[in-house]
């Protein structure tokens, strides 16, 4: 048996197992049985993506080279978790209340929703993460090679690059599958989180197993192990103080700033209280992870031949002692660490790239911004998918071109230092209201430049990118600018040197930039929201409403969050405002809610920009902003009470106003009704009387006689129909109608209605688009009456649809115990101010079309649907005229 083949098989089985876990979790979450998926334990385990392959394999190598220094990498995050009350609690609360989707979104949101800032953070994050992904690919490749070395005799070693490529492709596939399955408003990925939680258990178990084996199986017990440690080359405390403190700080900073950590800590957080458990459970996890590192390192140094790569002791030690099963387990542990990191990093980065770079460009490129046609959702999902492949692909390319090796191994801490440049801006934004966007720009730029100049470029070695004489003499012979000895302070550890200067100058630039600049109102408002997150309610900022057209917003919202969701949201908001109907008044509060809903899909800056475009560009007035941002707690409180009261009053007033308007309209209509009846009856009567008088006279030709008799006949029918309609309506209104309920097929009723409505039509006939599969619904209703409603709606579309090629789309679906039938045509639709009136008697929208009928059709429809236990309503924002018929799904008819 060839272990390499077994290894590949085990890998595939393991990956298949992860697929099943992720899939099952998604399924459970979708069916609403996902409660257990979101326990604090799962949250804590998901945080373990902090422990990548770099820490799984690398920690032992690190310990073999530098003794206990590796502990700093775990101590920093432990301190952050112990201090959850200070920072994480705020981050999570802000993340939830502002619907933050990534660290770039967080920073952009804090500094006035600046997309420029988000782009900067995204670019920095990609630069900082790419080498890290390369590192993961390398570790998987190396671990494969360890197995192939053992078996080198019989087989050819797998190609270095091929392994990495397969891993990269597989990971992209997994991430795309579970990371972009749906566009969740909250950016949460149940499947992925569950899979990485399982991987967290696997890697912990693997490292523990190797550790236990080494301590009790090889070294001969606890005290023996400790003795051997003291006797080894790392037997005494040799830690330079600067590195100890510096690295603890660095890892703490990176823990907060790494895009993937931000993803699991804040974005995927489901419940704030999970932090309480994680605050001690995560330190416990990393403590156990690091417990056996030194024993493994010491025993590796002792047993394995000189020159063996200490980075792979975790694998080679079991292999050297003949424990192949253990080695396999350990391999899976390393594999888990690498894969979970790449998956989450790819999701986090793709969200940032897609929301802050691709979507804004796409929106601009397609012209009208928010009002472009087409569904934005698939664009978002596509751009996420491409971004994921792009991010992983970049990591792969970096791995190929850097050639792997030690240059890559040292990149871990360098990447930490890179993302730590976010720290001043992030923390400053949480605690200091004076922090401004200009300051954030200054700080990030300064920090980034110093990091590149003093750490990233020199890390490739003197003479590779930075010329050797620049390293030694400084640029243009300016000695005080030597990359590793700023201001002539030589002899410092290069890493600590770079961290010290980059972070401190970053902070200084951030501070000074903030002091000298003046923030925009939106920045000040967001600043107050972030800093006082626990005093303020979770309301980000206020829109000056009124200008926005609710219908335009509806059109946009449908494209981004989906038609059904958007309609549900608008309807429930309208209800909250005390309005009847589908469209709420676009007041500040509603725009707020809508923006946050949209932010979940496209990011805060984009959502803000889209709404801004519709509400009239100039977004918010300073007064509005300042009113919300009002500082004193008392006024806040007072005004919030007043606001509640005045809102209540406003709602009542609105209801009253609506009722009053309705009453006035009705009384005007009652009056007009008589007049209308008179007109509708007298008009045909006029023709009848005039022509019958003519017929009574002699001397008419036979042709004329015939023609006039026909007119009299037609007008008599018109009169009869009008009287029928009137009687029908009065019977329906009085509730005296008897329904002939029976079981009927919706599709058949529609067939009948279409046939009746379009028979004998002169001129072009409207084209009808149907989905027969969706229409296969059994109804218990009065099919005749229902058909009457359908005939009316179809007939109206035929008569009034003014499109060049008129098309009527009939959409049928079930929604929560009801059957919804939408009739949507492609004409101009009905003017907003007329929409409220179409169901009133004689309310023909335009008298220009005397297309027969007395204007009672829709009024009758409404009455019929009421009797059938359903409703018919006008559906705004669909492009053309759209009517929605709702029916009870089963036999639950309305009581008579």
């Amino acid at each position, binding site marked *: 048996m060839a272990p390499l083949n077994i290894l590949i098989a085990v890998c595939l089985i393991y990956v298949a197992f992860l697929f099943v876990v992720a899939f099952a979790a998604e399924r459970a979450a979708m069916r609403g049985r996902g409660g257990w998926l979101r326990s604090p334990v799962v949250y804590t385990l998901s945080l373990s993506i902090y422990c990548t392959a770099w820490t799984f394999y690398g920690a032992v190598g690190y310990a073999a080279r530098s003794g206990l220094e590796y502990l700093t990498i775990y101590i920093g995050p432990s301190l952050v978790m112990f201090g959850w009350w200070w920072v994480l609690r705020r981050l999570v609360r802000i993340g939830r209340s502002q619907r933050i989707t990534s660290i770039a979104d967080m920073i952009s949101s804090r500094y006035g929703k600046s997309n420029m800032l988000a782009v900067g953070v995204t670019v920095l994050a990609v630069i900082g993460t790419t080498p890290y992904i390369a590192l993961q690919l390398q570790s998987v490749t190396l671990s494969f090679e360890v197995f192939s070395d053992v078996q080198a005799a019989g087989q050819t070693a797998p190609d270095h690059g091929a392994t990495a490529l397969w891993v990269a492709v597989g990971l992209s596939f997994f991430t795309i599958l579970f990371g972009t399955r749906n566009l969740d408003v909250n950016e949460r990925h149940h499947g992925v989180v569950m899979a990485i939680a399982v991987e967290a258990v696997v890697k912990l178990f693997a490292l523990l197993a190797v550790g236990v084996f080494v301590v009790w199986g090889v070294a001969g017990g606890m005290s023996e192990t400790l003795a051997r440690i003291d006797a080894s080359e790392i037997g005494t405390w040799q830690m330079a103080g600067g590195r100890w403190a510096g690295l603890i700080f660095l890892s703490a900073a990176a823990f907060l700033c790494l895009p993937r950590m931000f993803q699991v800590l804040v974005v995927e957080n489901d419940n704030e209280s999970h932090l309480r458990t994680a605050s001690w459970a995560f330190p416990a996890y990393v403590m156990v992870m690091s417990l056996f590192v030194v024993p493994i390192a010491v025993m590796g140094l002792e047993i394995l031949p000189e020159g063996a790569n200490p980075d792979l002791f975790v694998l080679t030690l079991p292999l050297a002692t003949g424990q192949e099963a253990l080695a396999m387990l350990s391999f899976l542990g390393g594999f888990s660490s690498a894969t979970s990191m790449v998956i989450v990093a790819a999701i986090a980065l793709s969200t940032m790239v897609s929301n802050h770079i691709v979507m804004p460009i796409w929106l601009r490129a397609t012209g009208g911004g928010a009002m472009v046609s087409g569904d934005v959702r698939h664009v978002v999902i596509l751009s996420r998918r491409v971004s994921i492949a792009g991010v992983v692909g970049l990591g792969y390319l970096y791995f190929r071109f850097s050639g792997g090796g030690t240059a890559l191994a040292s990149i871990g801490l360098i990447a930490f230092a890179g993302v730590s440049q976010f720290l001043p801006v992030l923390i400053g934004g949480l605690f200091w209201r004076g922090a401004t966007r200009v300051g954030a720009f200054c700080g990030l730029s300064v920090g980034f430049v110093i990091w590149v100049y003093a750490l990233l470029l020199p890390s490739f070695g003197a003479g590779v990118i930075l010329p050797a004489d620049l390293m030694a003499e400084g640029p243009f012979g300016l000695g005080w600018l030597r990359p590793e000895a700023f201001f002539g302070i030589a002899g410092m550890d290069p890493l600590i040197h770079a961290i010290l200067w980059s972070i401190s100058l970053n902070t200084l630039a951030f501070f000074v930039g903030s002091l000298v600049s003046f923030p925009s109102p939106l920045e000040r408002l967001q600043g107050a929201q972030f800093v006082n997150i626990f005093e303020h309610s979770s309301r980000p900022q206020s829109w000056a409403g009124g200008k926005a057209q609710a219908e335009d917003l509806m059109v946009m919202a449908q494209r981004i969050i989906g038609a059904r969701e958007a309609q549900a949201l608008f309807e429930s908001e309208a209800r909250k405002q005390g309005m009847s109907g589908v469209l709420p008044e676009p007041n500040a509060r509603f725009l707020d809610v809508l923006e946050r809903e949209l932010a979940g899909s496209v990011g805060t800056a984009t959502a803000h920009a889209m709404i801004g475009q519709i509400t009239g560009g100039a977004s918010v007035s300073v007064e509005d902003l300042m009113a919300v941002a009002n500082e004193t707690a008392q006024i806040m409180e007072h005004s919030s009470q007043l606001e509640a009261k005045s809102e209540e009053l406003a709602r009542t007033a609105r209801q009253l106003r609506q009722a009053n308007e309705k009453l006035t309209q009705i009384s005007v209509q009652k009056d007009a009704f008589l007049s209308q009846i*008179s007109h509708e009856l007298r008009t045909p009567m006029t023709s009848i009387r005039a022509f019958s*008088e003519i017929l009574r006279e002699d001397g008419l030709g036979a042709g004329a006689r015939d023609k006039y008799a026909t007119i009299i006949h037609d007008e008599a029918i018109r009169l009869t129909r009008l009287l029928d309609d009137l009687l029908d309506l009065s019977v329906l209104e009085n509730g005296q109608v008897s329904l002939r309920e029976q079981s009927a097929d919706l599709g058949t009723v529609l067939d009948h209605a279409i046939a009746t409505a379009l028979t004998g039509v002169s001129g072009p006939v409207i084209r009808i688009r149907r989905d027969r599969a969706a229409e296969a619904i059994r109804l218990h209703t009065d099919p005749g009456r229902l058909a009457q409603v359908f005939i009316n709606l179809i007939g109206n579309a035929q008569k009034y649809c003014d499109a060049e090629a008129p098309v009527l789309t009939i959409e049928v679906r079930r929604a929560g115990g009801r059957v919804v039938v939408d009739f949507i045509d492609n004409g101009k639709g009905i003017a907003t101010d007329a929409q409220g009136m179409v169901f009133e008697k004689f309310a023909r929208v335009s008298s220009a079309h005397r297309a027969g009928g007395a204007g009672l059709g829709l009024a009758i429809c409404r009455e019929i649907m009421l009797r059938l236990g359903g409703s018919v309503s006008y559906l705004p924002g669909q492009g053309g005229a759209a009517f929605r018929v709702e029916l009870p799904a089963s036999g639950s008819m309305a009581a008579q």
Partner: protein
Amino acid sequence: MGKRVLLIEDEPNIIEAISFILSRDGWSVATHANGHDAVDKVTAHAPDLLILDVMLPGKSGFEILRELREAEPTRGLPVLMLTARGQTKDREMAERAGVSRFMTKPFSNADVLDAVRELVAV
């Protein structure tokens, strides 16, 4: 060549009936079916008598009449108004707008003919 009558009415059957009655009596009848450009039509056609419906698409008969009475050439034009809304307040409105004769639909053919003859003879 008889005297010229302009009929502004949007019900095709009523147009047909009135045209028949009047042309048989020797009148030359022109018709127009909407309210928007009715005033222009009247000015251009310069009839001897105008028969005007009240409920017209675009502009009501009352409005048209008011505009005609404000313009010099049509100030004295005899106007016979026909309406299907037979309420008193409609008659009052028509009189205020300066109507020459007001009749409710349905009408007897003889009455219409009498009214037309009378109005043009005056």
